[in-house]
């Protein structure tokens, strides 16, 4: 079932085409990683989904309902965590969540129960401090709590971990991981290791264009660049050996740095043995021979080249 659909979305800021013909679908019960460099158009896209910005052309549907700019009706299906969530600092977290619950039209008894549950989930239960005294990580956690208050079908998180320290990032990812059991998540970031930890589907946005979307494992396998890392015992690799490597038809690139050689292959499954044979034939002493796992970072860097 489709939770979110963007149909040929264009967004222009003057002469700048911030988003170009963006077509994207997010299916129910998935964690969709929306990846892109800073300025790629991730936040702009999210603001258009929320009806905060008008697309120049194209249409957006949330749970089958069309998003109209300036209208907030479709937002009842969404929980939204902006990149820098801003709260009313004079309130206590409970008061803020109660306000959000009342705005969302929930009953007072339901709000009380839900607020207690969510504060426990995000680790803010029993915090007797006004929001103005919160750290960045605490604000992000409160942001997640408010986003989940109306039991959204779609949770949109705009770079929730970007400005956090490693502990804060870990905490947020753990919360999102827990939440993903109940709701669909659209999660924008430029931190690829975060995506690898919790996302099952991804879309890569580059200069306003969606260059790939699909299942994370499939994309990794489709766009994998097989790589072998060799650490030599000698500081200098014989130039003749490097030349022989480059001449092999299945080698696409050879990068040499001090005693390390990184070899990119077109197909690792059948040809890795040939590299070992060559090393033995040339009698080159080796400390380490490693077949590198294709990472999302490699895929991403390859895609936006």
């Amino acid at each position, binding site marked *: 079932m489709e939770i979110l659909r963007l149909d040929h979305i264009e967004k222009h800021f003057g002469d700048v085409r911030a988003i170009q013909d963006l077509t994207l679908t997010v299916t129910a019960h998935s964690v969709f990683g929306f990846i892109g460099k800073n300025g790629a158009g991730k936040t702009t896209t999210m*603001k258009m989904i*929320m009806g*905060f*910005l*008008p697309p120049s052309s194209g249409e957006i549907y949330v749970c089958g309902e069309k998003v109209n*700019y*300036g209208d*907030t*009706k479709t*937002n*009842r299906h*969404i*929980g*939204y965590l*902006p990149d*820098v*969530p*801003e*709260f*009313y600092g*004079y*309130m206590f977290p409970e008061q803020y969540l109660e*306000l*959000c619950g*009342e*705005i*969302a*039209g929930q009953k007072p008894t339901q709000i009380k129960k839900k607020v207690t549950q969510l504060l426990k989930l995000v680790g803010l239960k029993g915090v007797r401090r006004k929001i103005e005294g919160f750290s960045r990580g605490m604000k992000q956690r409160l*942001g997640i709590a*408010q*986003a989940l*208050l*109306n039991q959204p079908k779609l949770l949109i998180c705009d770079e929730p971990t970007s400005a956090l320290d490693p502990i804060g990032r870990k905490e947020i990812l753990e919360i999102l991981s827990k939440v993903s059991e109940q709701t669909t998540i659209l999660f924008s970031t430029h931190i690829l290791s975060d995506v690898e930890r919790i996302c099952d589907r991804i879309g890569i946005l580059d200069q306003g264009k969606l260059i790939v979307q699909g299942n994370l494992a499939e994309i990794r396998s489709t766009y994998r660049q097989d790589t072998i890392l060799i650490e030599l015992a000698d500081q200098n690799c014989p130039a003749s050996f490097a030349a022989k490597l480059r001449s092999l038809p299945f080698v696409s690139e050879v990068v040499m740095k001090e005693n390390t050689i990184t070899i990119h292959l077109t197909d690792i499954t059948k040809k890795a043995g040939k590299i070992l044979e060559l090393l033995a034939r040339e009698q080159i002493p080796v400390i380490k021979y490693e077949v590198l796992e294709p990472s999302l970072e490699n895929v991403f860097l390859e895609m936006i080249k």
Partner: protein
Amino acid sequence: MNGLLAFTKKEFREHIYNYKALILLAVFFVFGMISPLLAKMMPEIFSHMSIEGLTITITEPTYIEAYSQFFKNITQMGIIVILLIFSGILSRELTRGTLIIVLAKGLSRHAVILAKYFVALTLWTISYSLAAIINFGYTFYLFGQFYAPNLLFSLFCLWLFGVFILAVVMMTSTLTSGNYAGLLLTAAILGILLTINIFPTIKKFNPVSLASNNIALITNTKSVSELLITIWITLALSSFCLLISLIVFRRKKL
């Protein structure tokens, strides 16, 4: 409707927490107290001023002087306080980004404008009423005069002028971004209205007349009927400003 009520409650709470409501009440309380007192003490103050070769003779003050002081204080200092307190009523939240989450929760943009205007209007009404009641009581205490012709109508005119000012503040806060641009635009609009008031032919169509004829009304030099058209125009202009705020905010990029 739930959202409107919740956001209105939040607005009241915010004005209490950041002391704006308290400041407003305190200032208007002082206006109510000080106006009759100043009027009563004016001859005494002047009698202590000895300027060589100059004799200042001041007639015995009456309740009219007390009301004159009151209307002068409210139309000058009072309006400035209102502008300072409520300017940036919307733009401040837009700059900080605090509206994003509540709008994402499904609060309608119209509810934001209506709640903010309603709360500003309520605070103005309460503080102005407080000042008027205190002024009335204290004037009676000091001057023994109970009745002034058209007093309620005169007070209503000034209240309505405040209603109009708040609508202008709401509109300028929606049209501009940043905290001071709205204040400057409001000041510019008021400047234009004050300039227009110089021309006698169009004076009666100008909302400023509601704040400049208060004494004339209680001294019977101006009749109620002469200001009826101004009242209707002020109501229409206030509604127009609110409508502009609703339309502009509906289309505002966040």
